[in-house]
């Protein structure tokens, strides 16, 4: 932290770093401001232009990101900058890629939606871009403060977006709920961060990793027992996890999600359900895999001799939360009538599935974690895009009955929707299957009986999820038409949906390229700290359960 006041760093160095590391973010900031200014200058009828300008911004950011990624080299090794607060590695890059794709598709979806709602205004797009900027820093921050500030940048923008339909009561209510609960959860998160800072004296994740084992157990006694500071670490982990669980909408911190998803403008719901979730997961992965111990055994050699018990780390916590999330999300979705609310519960359950990858803690798991989020971005945006297409004059389009007989009205839209739904349910040959395949592969590979049980629970629940995805399909194909008003997709929506559907199918049939990219991301150096197959000297064995070969027992006995 004190690096800030070091006099040796010159401004030109900083500028150079900015160009090397933050080009996409800088471009986005520029375009976000431009969108704001344009919005004031343009007459009402031409506000659409702002959307195209923002889209161009996303496009440019994408190009510069790709250039940065290529320069990153084959190793994908992280380069840190700005006093070790930002890292650019392939993990960050692939998440940024994900956000930009999500943002681009969301803008395409929004154009038509805002038109129908009569709310086509520029600040919408600039807020969206600011949220994306926050997300991108969440992916590349390696300092708890950077991460927190970027989280807030994203969250505040999204709070406003959720309440964007000023005249709609539901939208206002959703925004209020989301804001209050979100602010509270940020507080909890911050408290966890402060505990970590108090224990280790730093907010930098790399330094936290090195410092945590040393705070383990003090030599002095407190109330007659050795003062076990690890309980403080545990508490900090729980606090941070609680804050993150809220952001990714994992049970029991999911209460806001159905209301916010239902009330928010559909295009914002789409954006929230993918990009916000992916960004929160990026931060989640960064903090937990990079900075905090999965299990806390044998912090220091000799602890066991002093009769100090092993403590569970976050793996057990995440396992329970993932199981509950998957079960509750799927069961609650079964009874929903409103499609947006249903998809909110489904996205809760998908958050649970995504957690499985972090829990597995091996290469398959990490790959699954990233690839699943990537695929989820595409397919969930697609589903919401189809629901946006149903929004017509006088028809909200978010009731299950609005889908009735869609096959007759819009066969191509129906086919695309079917692809997205089957993908969400994990049916091959769609991309969703590849994602689930990797998540389950990670769990099975560990060979841990509890994780195998978790996998069985998860697959059974994925069958349950098919039950409600099939309800959409039933309505579209089998139910008779209930209202005759035709469905018209605008060109932008068509492009967005077509692109997403093709990608979902392409990744489902030829996943090699995407897996290759994500595997590189899953191999970034930070992750090897979490999975010390090459055994870091400072962290002997506390994460042994996250090892690739699943040999925790042998490690344990060798230490004892």
């Amino acid at each position, binding site marked *: 932290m004190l690096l800030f006041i070091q006099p040796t760093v010159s401004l030109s160095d900083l500028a150079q770093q900015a160009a090397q590391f933050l080009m996409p973010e800088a471009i986005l900031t520029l375009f976000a401001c431009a969108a704001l200014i344009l919005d004031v200058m343009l007459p009402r009828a031409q506000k659409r232009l702002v959307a195209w300008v923002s889209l161009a911004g996303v496009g440019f950011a994408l190009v510069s990101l790709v250039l940065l990624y290529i320069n990153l080299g084959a190793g994908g090794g992280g380069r840190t900058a700005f006093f070790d607060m930002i890292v650019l590695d392939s993990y960050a890059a692939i998440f940024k890629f994900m956000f930009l794709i999500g943002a681009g598709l969301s803008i395409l979806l929004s154009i038509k939606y805002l038109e129908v709602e009569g709310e086509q205004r520029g600040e919408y797009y600039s807020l969206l871009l600011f949220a994306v900027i926050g997300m991108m820093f969440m992916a590349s921050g390696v300092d708890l403060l950077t991460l927190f500030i970027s989280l807030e940048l994203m969250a505040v923008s999204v709070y406003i977006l959720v309440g964007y339909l000023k005249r709609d009561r539901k939208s206002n209510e959703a925004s209020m709920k989301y804001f209050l609960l979100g602010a509270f959860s940020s507080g909890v998160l911050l408290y966890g961060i402060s505990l970590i800072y108090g224990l280790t004296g730093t907010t930098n994740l790399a330094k936290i990793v090195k410092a945590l084992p040393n705070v383990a157990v003090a030599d002095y006694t407190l109330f007659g027992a050795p003062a076990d500071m690890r309980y403080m670490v545990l508490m900090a982990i729980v606090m941070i996890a609680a804050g993150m669980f809220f952001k990714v909408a994992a049970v029991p911190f999911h209460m806001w999600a159905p209301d916010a998803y239902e009330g928010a403008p559909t295009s914002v719901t789409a954006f929230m359900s993918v990009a916000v979730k992916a960004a929160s997961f990026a931060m989640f992965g960064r903090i937990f895999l990079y900075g905090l111990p999965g299990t806390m055994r044998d912090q220091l050699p000799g602890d066991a001799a002093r009769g100090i018990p092993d403590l569970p780390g976050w793996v057990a916590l995440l396992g329970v939360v993932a199981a509950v999330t998957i079960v509750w999300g799927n069961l609650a979705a079964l009874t929903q009538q409103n499609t947006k609310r249903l998809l909110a519960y489904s996205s809760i359950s998908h958050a649970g599935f995504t957690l499985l990858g972090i829990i597995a803690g091996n290469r398959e798991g990490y790959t699954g974690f990233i690839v699943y989020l990537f695929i989820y971005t595409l397919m969930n945006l697609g589903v919401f895009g189809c629901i946006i297409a149903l929004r017509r004059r006088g028809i909200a389009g978010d009731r299950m009955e609005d889908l009735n007989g869609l*096959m007759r009205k819009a066969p191509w839209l129906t086919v695309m929707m079917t692809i997205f739904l*089957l993908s969400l349910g994990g*049916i*091959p*040959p769609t991309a969703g*299957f590849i994602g689930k*395949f990797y998540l*389950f*592969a990670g769990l*099975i*590979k560990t060979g841990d009986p509890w994780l*195998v049980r978790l*996998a*069985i629970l998860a*697959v*059974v629940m*994925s*069958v349950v999820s*098919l*039950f409600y995805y*099939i309800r959409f*399909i*039933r309505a579209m*194909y*089998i139910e008779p038409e209930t209202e005759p008003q035709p469905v018209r997709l605008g060109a932008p929506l068509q492009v967005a949906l077509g692109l997403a559907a093709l990608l979902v199918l392409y990744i489902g049939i*030829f*996943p*090699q390229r995407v*897996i*290759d990219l994500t*595997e590189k991301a899953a191999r970034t150096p930070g992750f090897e700290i979490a999975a010390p197959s090459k055994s870091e000297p400072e962290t002997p064995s506390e994460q042994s359960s996250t090892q690739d070969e699943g040999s925790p027992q042998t490690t344990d006995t060798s230490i004892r």
Partner: protein
Amino acid sequence: MPGHIEIFGIGILSWVTWLPALGGIFLLFFNRAKNDAIRWFANVWISLCFLVSIPLITGLGGQPGYDRAYGGLQFIEDYEWIPLIGARYQLGVDGLSLVLVLLTTLIGVISVVTSWAYIREKGREKEYYIMLMLLQSGMIGAFVAADLFLFFIFWEVMLVPMYFLIGIWGGKNRLYSAIKFFLYTLVGSVVMLLAVLKLYFVFADVVNARPAEVRLTAERNAASSVIDPAAAGQRNERMLAMVEDAMKRAQGIDPADPAGRRPLPPGYVRSSFNIPALTAIGPHLSAVIGLGVIIWLFIGFSLSFAIKVPMFPFHTWLPDAHYDAPTAGSVILAGILLKMGTYGFMRFSLPMFPDAANHPTVRQVMVVLAIIGIIYGALVAMAQKDVKKLVAYSSVSHLGFVVLGLFALNPNGINGAVMQMINHGISTGALFMLAGILYERRHTYEIAEFGGLASVMPTFSTIFLIVTLSSLGLPLMNNFIGEFLTIRGAFEANWVWGAFATTGIVLGAAYMLWLYQRVFFGQVTNPANENLPDLNAREAWQFAPLIFLIFWIGIYPKPLLSYINPQTEMVVAQVQPDYFQNAPAAQRPRLAEERSSEEESPSNRQPAAAEPEQ
């Protein structure tokens, strides 16, 4: 030489698999109002798909067809697909899957032809034919896949079109039946996915722990015959090469390197989904994982297949699905989809987990469930008031025989089971078509609505009689052979099993004949039946191939058996390695010769192995 055919540089199995789907894609671009064009196109196209599958047996322009002298997979196609997972695009058929593929293409034609009038009445023809085409591709793909990942994809893909077939064009309760079918089968397959993953992670360990033994097993599986000395010298080198390729990957060696020393390049995973390779590690699984895990893996696979078959406690989806499916759907369901389950047992559960399959408790449980299925299915069938439900429950009973035969774990039982699979497809498919014709005439399946039809519809009742007699296992007809072999196998394994199974045949005769009596004999009591038209030419001719097969298999089953037998022997040798040592007296002398010929064979064969395959 092992069969290998290419048409325009693409292997014939790819043609057979993808041609129906291609037709489905063409159909997408038809104007949905031009129903006649769509119908004609679908009929012609599906017939074309059948014609393309015929060279599998006959060969094509000098390219060899299936050669029964070789064991293992033929017509192998092998391409890179997802190296990071280790999945490859590998196709191949052995005798078992060849027969099933041909049955599928034939039933495909029949089911499309039989929909001619039904679908005209129901409407939405374009989507209907697209779904049938996609279903056809999915089913064939599952039979020809030689890569477990590919198989799994086809296995799940099949569900979706079938859901639509039942859900859109089905009967009264179609929504319920469709979702029940979908979810039941899906539960099985996702559990299978976990077992597949475990097997995939174990593969490399087993190969590295017992490389020599795994190779020996692979060689035995590729050999033409386990017991026939005349054929023992021939070995399916192409399939063996595929297994070796998978083994090299598991050992981290680049299979493209002839010297076999270069390590696997980055971007490749050290495991494989190759089915023959996974079969080859079957007997050696216990080197790496305990019996408990093997049994769990067996359950993971078998649950999926047991639901598909369906075996006794998992059968409840079947009557619903059959009852509400359109005729073509029922025919495909009975003819092919149920066979997926028994095919899965024979291709995966038995040979991949021999330790579990041969475990006395596991075997006991499976056999008891099969026998319950036989008797319970027959009794429930007897109580039905509805033609289609009766036939549906008779399927439960017949497929109980198949599972019983498989778990008799001897050549007679397994041969009988495979015969029974095919026979059931033919006879029950025909019964569903006949029931469908009744429905088209009267829009009801209620048995009490009919009576005395023999005088009104003579051709129809004749065909119905033939199919009924075939279904109850009259000698000289197809089911007799299957049931005879199955029960012989069951008696050989345990006479109690055989005794129980025999009651199933008696009950089968009872409900089928009673059905025939109630529908066709007596006076015409219901005035609605007085002027029912007899079969027209299309309706009559669509039965011709089925009736031909009924008699052919019944009178001269040897050709069919000769396709199946090598695979059967392979499975038995895999599951009960010492079976042929203690074989019935008739097979023993040949065995001694075979052993001597095997001892000298490695030196003879080695040069042949080095030769390139093409």
